[in-house]
């Protein structure tokens, strides 16, 4: 190999600088993603830094086996780091739903990038060996290496993550890596036998990364990443909805189509209020039906009654029930209720399922999304409630989440009016769930003889006899403001009330 000229030396040293920044960025991307997704950032960062440094050691060790064509090897490694590191965030986001394999893939990626980055410095030092005094060489290479690291560690949290997000940050630095490879293969053309191949390879990698860069923008949906205050730890579009889970130090939040479904910080207030007034008041509760509630939280509360022998949970979206039964991070929120032997999960449409079902239930807990569109509005119609009436046993009871009686009193009382038109006796109530606001529920039954709230399970955080009893009083600002129409399939009056009231509330 010919001697590089002195300005060539400078170029190689600048390469060290870029490489060092990129290497550290990949490590930071992996650490950040791992703590987003798996939580416990101290553990995640610590193990990832450890594995990364150790892998660099392996890379340094392996460098001695590379004997010839050192510059060519250096460029190849550069391109590989660019490719793997650049796509690391894309890969990790993509494999997250695969649950168990996530950690394996995470550490494999950290290992591979570590080894490749570890190869770089020793190779470079050997390339420059003999051209510069050894003490100069060591001093210069490591100076640039550490400066690069400092720069990366500063711009990563301050500039790149807030501006570009993780996927694009990783891709950006991947392109930087590849550009170094491209530049070197063009610059040292005469010294490289295979410079054509190297140039072609680097150009194609840059193009792929460019496309991914633009595409990443589309799939992550700018609005979504900007719209959520916290880190997104899970995002998936199913045929039915977009599921997004965000997380911060204090709480985990679930959003369906951008609407908050629960916050782990106060969901107990919602789910205890939804489940216990009904369950604690009936003498027989062996067969319980949950419609909606794929997050398993309502099931968790129902399982606190030992005499419940079977729970049927009907939720439309298999992706939801799978997420909350197989992912430890989420199933710990519902005390693994979806894996309980008493529970049967059915992924079906609630309306058609209920109509075809020949089973009758002691208790039905209905936890549908708010009636924000015509499709969901059908699940609050008199036709649906008549079907429900026929599936409820004589002494049984149903409870229906019915949006906020403070924000949308007409919507709330429209559900009550509709239930009563279908033959139910109703008992509406509400409580405060800080993440949602003041929230409403309606008890619906065929007869009003109940042992009200007489059999509450122990150790509830919110619901006791007093707190339940005070939920049944509605102050004047939660009363309906006009005469309400029964919600029917052919008038969808509830959706109209709901849109009117919520848009008014959100505008102000």
């Amino acid at each position, binding site marked *: 190999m010919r001697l590089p000229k002195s300005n060539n030396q400078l170029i190689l040293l600048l390469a060290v600088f870029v490489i060092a920044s990129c290497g550290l960025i990949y490590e930071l991307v992996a650490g950040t993603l791992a703590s987003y997704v798996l939580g416990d950032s101290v553990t995640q960062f610590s193990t990832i830094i450890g594995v990364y440094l150790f892998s660099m050691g392996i890379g340094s060790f392996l460098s001695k086996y590379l004997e010839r064509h050192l510059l060519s090897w250096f460029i190849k490694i550069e391109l590989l780091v660019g490719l793997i590191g650049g796509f690391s965030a894309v890969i990790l986001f993509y494999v997250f739903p695969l649950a168990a394999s996530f950690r394996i893939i995470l550490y494999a990626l950290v290992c591979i990038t570590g080894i490749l980055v570890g190869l770089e410095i020793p190779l470079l030092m050997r390339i420059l060996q003999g051209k510069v005094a050894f003490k100069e060489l060591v001093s210069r290479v490591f100076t640039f290496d550490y400066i690069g690291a400092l720069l990366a560690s500063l711009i990563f949290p301050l500039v790149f993550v807030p501006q570009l997000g993780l996927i694009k940050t990783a891709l950006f630095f991947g392109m930087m890596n590849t550009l170094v490879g491209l530049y070197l293969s063009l610059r040292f053309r005469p010294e490289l036998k295979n410079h054509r191949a190297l140039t072609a390879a680097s150009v194609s990698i840059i193009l792929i990364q460019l496309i991914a860069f*633009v595409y990443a923008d589309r799939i992550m949906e700018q609005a979504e990443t900007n719209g959520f205050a916290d880190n997104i730890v899970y995002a998936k579009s199913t045929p039915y909805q977009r599921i997004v889970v965000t997380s911060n130090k204090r709480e985990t939040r679930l959003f369906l189509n951008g609407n908050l479904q629960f916050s782990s910080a106060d969901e107990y207030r919602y789910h205890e209020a939804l489940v216990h007034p009904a369950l604690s008041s009936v003498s027989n509760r062996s067969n319980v039906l949950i419609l909606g509630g794929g997050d398993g939280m309502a099931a968790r509360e129902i399982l606190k009654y030992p005499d419940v022998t079977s729970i049927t949970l009907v939720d439309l979206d298999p992706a939801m029930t799978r997420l909350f039964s197989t992912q430890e991070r989420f199933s710990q929120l519902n005390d693994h209720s979806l894996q309980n032997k008493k529970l049967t999960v059915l992924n079906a*449409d609630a*309306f058609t399922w209920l109509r075809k079902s020949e089973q009758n239930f002691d208790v039905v807990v209905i936890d549908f999304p708010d009636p924000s569109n*015509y499709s969901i509005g059908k699940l609050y119609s008199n*036709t649906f409630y008549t079907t429900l009436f026929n599936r409820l046993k004589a002494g049984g009871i149903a409870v229906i989440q019915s949006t906020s009686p403070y924000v949308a009193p007409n919507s709330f009382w429209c559900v009550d009016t509709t239930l009563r038109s279908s033959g139910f006796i109703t008992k509406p109530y509400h409580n405060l769930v800080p993440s949602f606001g003041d929230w409403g529920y309606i008890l619906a039954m065929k007869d009003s003889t109940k042992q009200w709230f007489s059999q509450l399970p122990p150790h509830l955080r919110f619901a006791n006899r007093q707190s339940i009893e005070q939920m049944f009083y509605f102050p004047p600002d939660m009363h309906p403001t006009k005469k309400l129409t029964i919600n029917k*399939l052919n008038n*969808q009056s509830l959706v109209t009330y709901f849109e009117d009231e919520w848009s008014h509330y959100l505008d102000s």
Partner: protein
Amino acid sequence: MKRRNFIELCMAGSAALLADTGCKQPAPSFKGGITGAAAQTGHLLRDLKTFPVPQTYETIHTVIAGAGISGLSAGRWLYKYGKEDFTILELEDHAGGNAANGKNEVSAYPLGAHYIPIPNNHLTEYLDFLQESNVLQYQNGEQLPFYNEEYLCADPQERLFINGTWQEGLVPVKGITKEEQPQFQKFFALMEHYRYLKDAEERYIFDIPVDRSSTDAAYTRLDTITMDSWLREQGLTAPALRWYVNYCTRDDFGCNAASVSAWVGIHYFASRKGKGTNATHSDVITWPQGNGYLVEQLKKDIDKKIRVNSLVLSVFQKDKKIAIHYLDVKSKQVKGLLAEKCILATPVFITGKLLKDQQAFNAYKEKFIYTPWVVANLKLRQPSVSSWPGMCWDNVIYNSNSLGYVDATHQLVDQLTPYKNITYYLPLTDTDATTARMAAYKTSYDSWCRQVLDDLKTAHPKIEDDLEEINITVWGHAMPKPLPGHIFGAFRKVLHQPVNDQLFFAHTDYAGISIFEEGFYQGIEAAQKIIHAS
């Protein structure tokens, strides 16, 4: 290079890259074909002059030719009154006629007629049938029927694409001038007046079936002028109102306001007086499969009596009986039936061909000008709630040649399905019917798709992104145009006369207008004559 510039450059580079691939004309990303109406089999009757004569005759008491609404209704009535020795011959491989439906993995969808209005309350037999069909019931001794709310058209029902946006309802509101507005009010007030108007003999001026309407000359006069002339007489000249009325007459009768009888045009608006405890005359009843639901109900007890793929070739008197020759399309054999009675539940243009010795049918041939219709069923992906916002049951584009489209999945109670089926209707009323029909038979699948999509793109520019399949149905002879004279001219009655108490005629062609009730009563009337005779 600054980071921002670099990113901009990257974006530009990738955009150029994507744009380049976009420039290539992509192959159509949807599938489908021309389906429905077995025109080819039907045309055997027109093109082939001689068929072999059957060797033997099967004896059956009553033969019904045609399994459209009239034929099925006749069969149902015979069965109901214990006259079970009958058979129904049908050219297609399914019953239903204009009310037939298709089906895919998403839902059933209509191929033609797709809804019924709330029935008038004095139509006892019809209300009974709808009660049998779970469409209505009488609750707690109420006089008025309670309609099954799953079948009442769900909300939101109708919208109109006008001046670049969608508005609720089909009556134009957006961009209507102050001069036009009072004309709409006047028009609807007139229709409301006509709705409950009766003559000296207490007969409604506009009733269903049409032949129960008043024959008072003051109103039959309306059958001598066109709808357009009547509108002009009333000073109703606002373009938006003219569009609306023309839309309605094309929708129900496949006939422009410029040529449809004014009596028929007004009948569309004024004949509906139905009432239920939970519905009024302006409500409609519909199903994903359209009136295919009612076809199923009509034939549920008599399905085994229907011989599909049976092309009737000729009907004539033989040894004091009626001989029917038909081609079994599957086995390609001509078969013979000998019947005491025969109901020809076929359109007039077919009936004339079957009865070679019936002069009257030839004499009045030109009175029956059949409008061809094209119906397109589109299967659309619906990846998110927002992809088809605000879709109603009926979606109409102002000033389009088509009647817009209905959402076949609208009545489903299921939560959002990943797909939608929409049914697009186009009556070919631009040129004269024969020219339009010949052109329609020659038009290729690709060309139909282009026409349909070009029209829909007015309101949905990106429709092709979501499109998976288009199936085209061409109805060569969908319905005869009710031109002036059609209702009170004598020819309908002449043709409708039974022959020798053996041969009866039942079809909406004899009723004057092509609506479900007319077909239903045509069948009952013919069946009653047979039941009473025996």
